[in-house]
């Protein structure tokens, strides 16, 4: 407890005694202890929320320290949740912190676990987990508040060059995608024999390179890197050039000749295409970086010297990829495989070796195709999907979250706002009134219920029948996440235990009406109480049973309108309160009405589209302006 009685004097005056008195007993769940999480934790601790549970699965990295201020350099590699709690606790000794280094998707974090909290604050950085959290807290009587903060990567530019490098890495060092089985099958099914023969040759060529890289025999593997180079950047390109049709309207790639590049006589293109005014054959002077969007390259006055931001010449890229000494990246990766510690190596932006490889490989490919190369810095961002982040935005957003959370606790729903940070000079913080609940929302239009059970004994059919109650004649399909467990034409699984179907605590069974007449029921699973009688059925149904909404039948399929109906663009940006995403630079997108009603007829199909991130609404043309489609 704090010795300073007056530490809360200011907060009490501002919140008023009634709200302030409630804070010590308010139980808060904070999911995420990163950029937003650290700032948010600091705020709610200072304000005086008495019982805070903090959960994060991640560990601390050096690059976090520019904004996740609860962590210091000595904390790198330790648990974010634990260190955050440790650092923030002294900010207010009156608060109890319970940090958990764990994954919110683990089974023990089921619906009953969430129900212990009065308010849930979301400080996540990915859509999938946000959805999990959203679904888990939408249940009867749950007061839910998700503060979703979305930053979408702006770099669409040159994504392909970096990812081609990742693909090459995977082909050489990743899992063995054994093509022979597929090719045999294709041949048997009578596919084009000549094409198959070519593909077989391809697969074999790759396999011999893969084998060479892994070989422990020195005569074989000293040449492996050069073999890999020649296959990918010379032979394969030459093969592509044979397909004359492809190059009628496209600029053809140039095969890279290993030896002449290294001795400086290689001629890339007739015009000797240069980049940034530098001959690709020559070693590059240290040119300053241009990050893909916001670069500020001043050649004379700011030579950086940072090795990552140098642009490599063609020769340097080749040397990085393969050289006669062990520095070459292909050799380094091969050595890792040979040592036996790793059977495959996957790209990881924080793994220096794989980053070097992808840089070299994608640059070599780019050079062959006449595309601008990238610095290692740029490749890391693209292939590693890095989103830039700064302290101030996190701090501002977290402050705003707390203010809104307090409005929620006051039940001042009409006073709540969504707030956008934007580039508009006159209005840097723009407020938007919350939308009304959207009956078409992909998450909360479903009806949720909780079933306590022993999955090793409870049968799927019994649980589903029990939930449907009187209505158990209707035709339904049953899912767990994306997996179909049963449908009207296939009921084998109804006799099986939930556990045998991998349907366990923390997961959801979804019951979808095949006629499209009733809303979907989503059943969360948790465990039986310890005193549950042994001879009782191994499940407890909710009481009352969930009542899904009756839906009007979809109108008969008609041709969709040529232009979707649009309301005035002048209205404030509509945000679905329950949508997972707040787009900071919003361009309201339209649900493409070109999907005909036929496609949407099957509820199962709608559901699959749903889970890919589209929010579907009932009836074409309805509520289009209120929906932001997530790509």
């Amino acid at each position: 407890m704090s010795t300073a009685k007056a530490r809360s004097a200011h907060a009490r005056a501002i919140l008023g005694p009634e709200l302030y008195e409630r804070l010590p007993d308010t139980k808060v769940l904070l999911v995420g202890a990163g950029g937003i999480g650290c700032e948010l934790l600091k705020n709610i601790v200072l304000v005086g929320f008495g019982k805070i549970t903090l959960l994060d699965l991640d560990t601390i990295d050096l690059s976090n320290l520019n904004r996740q201020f609860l962590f210091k350099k000595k904390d790198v590699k330790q648990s974010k949740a634990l260190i955050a709690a440790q650092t923030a606790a002294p900010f207010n000794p009156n608060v109890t912190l319970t940090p958990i280094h764990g994954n919110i998707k683990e089974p023990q974090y089921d619906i009953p676990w969430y129900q212990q909290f009065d308010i849930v604050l979301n400080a996540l950085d990915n859509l999938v987990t946000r959805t999990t959290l959203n679904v888990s807290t939408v249940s009867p009587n749950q007061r839910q508040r998700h503060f979703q903060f979305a930053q979408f990567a702006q770099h669409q530019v040159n994504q392909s060059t970096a990812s081609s490098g990742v693909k090459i890495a995977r082909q050489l060092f990743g899992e063995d995608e054994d093509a022979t089985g597929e090719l045999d099958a294709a041949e048997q099914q009578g596919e084009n024999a000549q094409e198959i023969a070519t593909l077989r040759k391809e697969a074999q060529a790759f396999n011999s390179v893969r084998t060479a890289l892994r070989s422990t025999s020195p005569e074989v593997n000293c040449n492996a890197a050069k073999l890999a180079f020649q296959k990918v950047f010379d032979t394969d390109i030459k093969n592509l050039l044979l397909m004359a049709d492809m190059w009628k309207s496209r600029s053809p790639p140039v095969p890279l000749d290993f030896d002449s590049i290294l001795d400086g006589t290689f001629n890339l293109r007739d015009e000797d295409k240069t980049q940034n005014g530098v001959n690709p054959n020559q070693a590059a002077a240290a040119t300053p970086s241009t990050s893909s969007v916001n670069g500020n390259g001043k050649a004379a006055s700011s030579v950086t010297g940072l090795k990552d931001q140098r642009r490599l010449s063609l020769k340097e890229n080749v040397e990085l990829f393969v050289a006669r000494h062990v520095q070459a990246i292909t050799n380094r990766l091969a050595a890792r495989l040979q040592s036996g510690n790793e059977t495959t190596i996957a790209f990881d932006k924080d793994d220096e070796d794989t980053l070097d490889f992808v840089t070299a490989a994608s640059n070599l490919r780019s050079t062959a195709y006449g595309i601008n190369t990238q610095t290692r810095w740029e490749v890391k961002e693209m292939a590693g999907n890095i989103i830039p982040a700064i302290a101030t935005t996190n701090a501002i957003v977290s402050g705003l979250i707390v203010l809104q959370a307090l409005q929620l606790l006051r039940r001042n729903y009409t006073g709540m706002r969504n707030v956008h940070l934007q580039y508009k000079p006159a209005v840097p913080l723009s407020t938007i009134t919350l939308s009304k609940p959207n009956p078409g929302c992909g998450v909360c239009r479903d009806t949720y219920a909780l079933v306590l059970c022993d999955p090793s004994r409870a049968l799927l059919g019994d649980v589903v029948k029990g939930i449907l109650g009187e209505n158990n004649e209707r035709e339904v399909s049953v899912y767990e996440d994306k997996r179909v467990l049963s449908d009207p034409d296939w009921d084998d699984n109804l006799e099986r235990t939930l556990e045998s179907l991998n349907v366990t605590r923390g997961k959801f069974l979804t019951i979808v009406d095949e006629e499209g007449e009733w809303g979907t029921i989503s059943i969360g699973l948790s465990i039986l109480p310890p005193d549950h009688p042994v001879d009782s059925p191994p499940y407890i149904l909710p009481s009352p049973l969930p009542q899904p909404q009756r839906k009007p039948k979809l109108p008969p399929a008609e041709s969709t309108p040529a232009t979707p109906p649009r309301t005035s663009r002048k209205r404030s940006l509509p945000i679905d309160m329950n949508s997972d995403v707040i787009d900071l630079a919003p361009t309201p997108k339209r649900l493409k009405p070109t999907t005909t009603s036929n496609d949407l007829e099957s509820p199962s199909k709608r559901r699959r589209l749903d889970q890919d991130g589209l929010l579907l609404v009932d009836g074409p043309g309805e509520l289009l302006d209120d929906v932001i489609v997530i790509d």
Partner: protein
Amino acid sequence: MPVNDMENSQSTPSGSNGPQLTEEEASRYDRQMRLWGLEAQQRMRNATILVLRLKGTATEAIKNMVLAGIGKLVIVDGEKVTEEDLGAGFLFRDEDVGKNRVDAAKSRIESLNPLVTVETISNASILAGEQFEDLIRAVDVVCVTDWDRDDLIRINAVCRRNKKPFYAGGTYGLLGYIFCDLLDHEFISPDRSAPKDAPKSVKRTEIYSPLDIALRHRWSTLTRRQTKEVNPAVVFSILAIWQYQSLHSGELPDNLSAATELQSIANSLISEAEVNKQFLTQAPETVLNAIANTAVHEFSPVCAIVGGMLAQDLLKALAAREPPIANFFVFDGNTGAGTVTRMGMP
């Protein structure tokens, strides 16, 4: 995309040609450099910032600036830590009550980012006379927090005389403000309407005014919609608080009895400023009642937002990328809205 080299304008620190970034700095600052670039990072790194008074607003602003990697921070505060300070001052602990604020906080500020130099001054006498002029000359930007209007005007003038950019910010309960005088500020402004593959940057200059000129601003040129957009009720509430403070020897209103006076001050300010009568003739009573009760208090989420905007803008000014606030930002914590009014700027 090469940009014309800019002459060393008043708002960029001398020493852009200072030592290069180390690899360690590059790792720590990686995520922010991918936003604003290496050049901007170097400018921040070569800058010395002076901050006056270490209450909630400054606590947050300092955290942000230090994390960003400025070169040096100088903090001046002559006062001691009180129990109330602990509510928003996470750089203080129970056992610091009674100590000089800056002494209590120093090592914690340093540990936020050991690459930043921190100098603390607990003797406020440095804020007057020749000492003050020397202090101003030794820094690149001045940031005054939770200060009274009349002295802000004085400090602004000293900064101007020495060609130093000036920032002022603070909070009053759920309200907050930022004012800046960046002299003649040259910067690069990305052209966001340019096509994707050709990001253009435009060089711009913005001419700023000192606070006393800004306060004489007339609103008559704004349309009703333009007036509404910048939230004049909040602007004039803050100006009224300033005037009240000036009339009460620096004391802030601290209970409901001050509401009547605040109301009459606000109304005459609104009328003098020729605010569009169709939109606003008097400050709303509910707003001023709330202010009367809360202006003297600080609230950590509001400090986080205002301190965040303040640091963000100061760093922007250092980087000379993106247009900074021009020139009076107000924050309304009742809704979360933040708006900027151009006051007295050409």
